[in-house]
């Protein structure tokens, strides 16, 4: 394989479209966004319309997921956080399906695009800021001074906390993007080694490919979970000022 392991992330404009001066051309990532939406919507709507008291497999899975997200929200935000349930759950579903569908060979991992994860993270962080200022007004700036800070430390704490706040959306976006990218790069490298090594040595990187693939499958879930729980934590911080600061990173 002479191809770069990063080749898989390259995009080409398949159908060039322009809207009001902006390029909104259809490329592989866009198509896979649609596939993610389609698959997720079909499965979730099917699960949601089953409504059986003793659930089948699909309904069971969907219920497990919904219950998981619900308890996550209740743990971090409490009962009033349930109004964010649709947002958090859709984020989880979208990211999870993107990660999983991206694992299918030949497909495209939507969440390996930094701009995709950045949009999610800035929307989430922006929403938490808006919520915070709406609920607490100017007092929300108190999030920059953790409770129990001695007065003489305040001038030092405020810049540190500003950095920590700015790091939130950045780390949220980079974490998901980097995990997905790294996983797929690793798979590509190992697989090119397999091809390049031939039967004699190739079995070793191939065994690693299988193992890493299994690991990537777990990471697909874990990253979706991390992204949504951090969403809950950030929104929860906006709700309860100085409530769960320790979860921030």
């Amino acid at each position, binding site marked *: 394989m002479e191809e770069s392991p*990063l*080749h898989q*992330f*390259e*995009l080409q*404009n398949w159908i060039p*479209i322009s*809207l009001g001066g*902006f*390029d*909104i*051309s*259809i*490329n592989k*990532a*866009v198509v896979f*966004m*649609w596939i*993610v*939406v389609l698959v*997720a*919507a079909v499965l*979730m*709507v099917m*699960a*949601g*319309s*089953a*409504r*059986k*008291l003793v*659930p089948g497999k699909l*309904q069971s899975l*969907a*219920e497990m997921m*919904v*219950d998981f997200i*619900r308890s996550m929200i209740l743990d971090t935000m409490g009962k009033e956080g349930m109004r964010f*349930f*649709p*947002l958090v*759950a*859709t984020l989880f*579903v*979208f990211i999870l399906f993107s990660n999983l569908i991206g694992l299918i060979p030949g497909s495209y991992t*939507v969440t*390996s*695009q*930094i*701009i*995709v994860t950045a*949009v*999610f993270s800035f929307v989430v962080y922006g929403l938490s800021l808006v919520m915070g200022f709406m609920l607490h007004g100017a007092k929300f700036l108190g999030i920059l001074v953790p409770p129990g800070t001695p007065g003489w430390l305040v001038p030092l704490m405020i810049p540190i906390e500003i950095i920590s706040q700015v790091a939130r959306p950045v780390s949220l976006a980079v974490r998901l*993007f980097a995990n997905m*990218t790294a996983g797929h790069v690793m798979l590509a490298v190992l697989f090119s080694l397999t091809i390049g090594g031939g039967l004699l040595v190739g079995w070793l990187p191939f065994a690693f490919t299988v193992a890493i693939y299994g690991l990537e499958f777990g990471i697909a879930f874990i990253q979706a979970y991390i992204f949504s729980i951090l969403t809950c934590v950030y929104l929860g911080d906006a709700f309860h000022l100085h409530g769960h600061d320790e979860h921030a990173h």
Partner: protein
Amino acid sequence: MPQFESHFFSSLIFWEVISFGILLFILYKYAFPGILSVLEEREKKIKDSLDQAERHRADAESRLRDYEAKLSAAGKEAEGILAAAKERAQRLLDENEQRLTADAERIKGDATREIEQERRKALQDIRTQTTELALMVAEKVVQRSLTEADQRKFADEALEALSRSQQR
């Protein structure tokens, strides 16, 4: 890295927002309410079932206690009835015995009195007959030599002597 090629950003942002919005709408409208309601329903059902089971258990327990109390009460009652019956039987027995004894006593007394009476009567009869006999005899002997009164007086004296000798 290909991901930092910024000329794809606008289309990715645009389609991401659209896709995510559509997914959010579909899930919010058609998937989450169903799943959440089923979850809540099941939770409620489980809670209700547990509550009901707890209620039934408490019910059964109280019923058991009830029955046990009733059983022991019934046992006590039976015991009481038995004791009362025994006592009554004893009393009846005693009464019967007493009455029988009294009856026997009375019958004996009656018989004794009757016998005594008969004896007296017989004695009286004997006396009368003896007197008459004696009178007859005396009359035969004396043959109207004496007045009726004298005769009777003699006869009485004789009888007196006779009865005295008899009593002795």
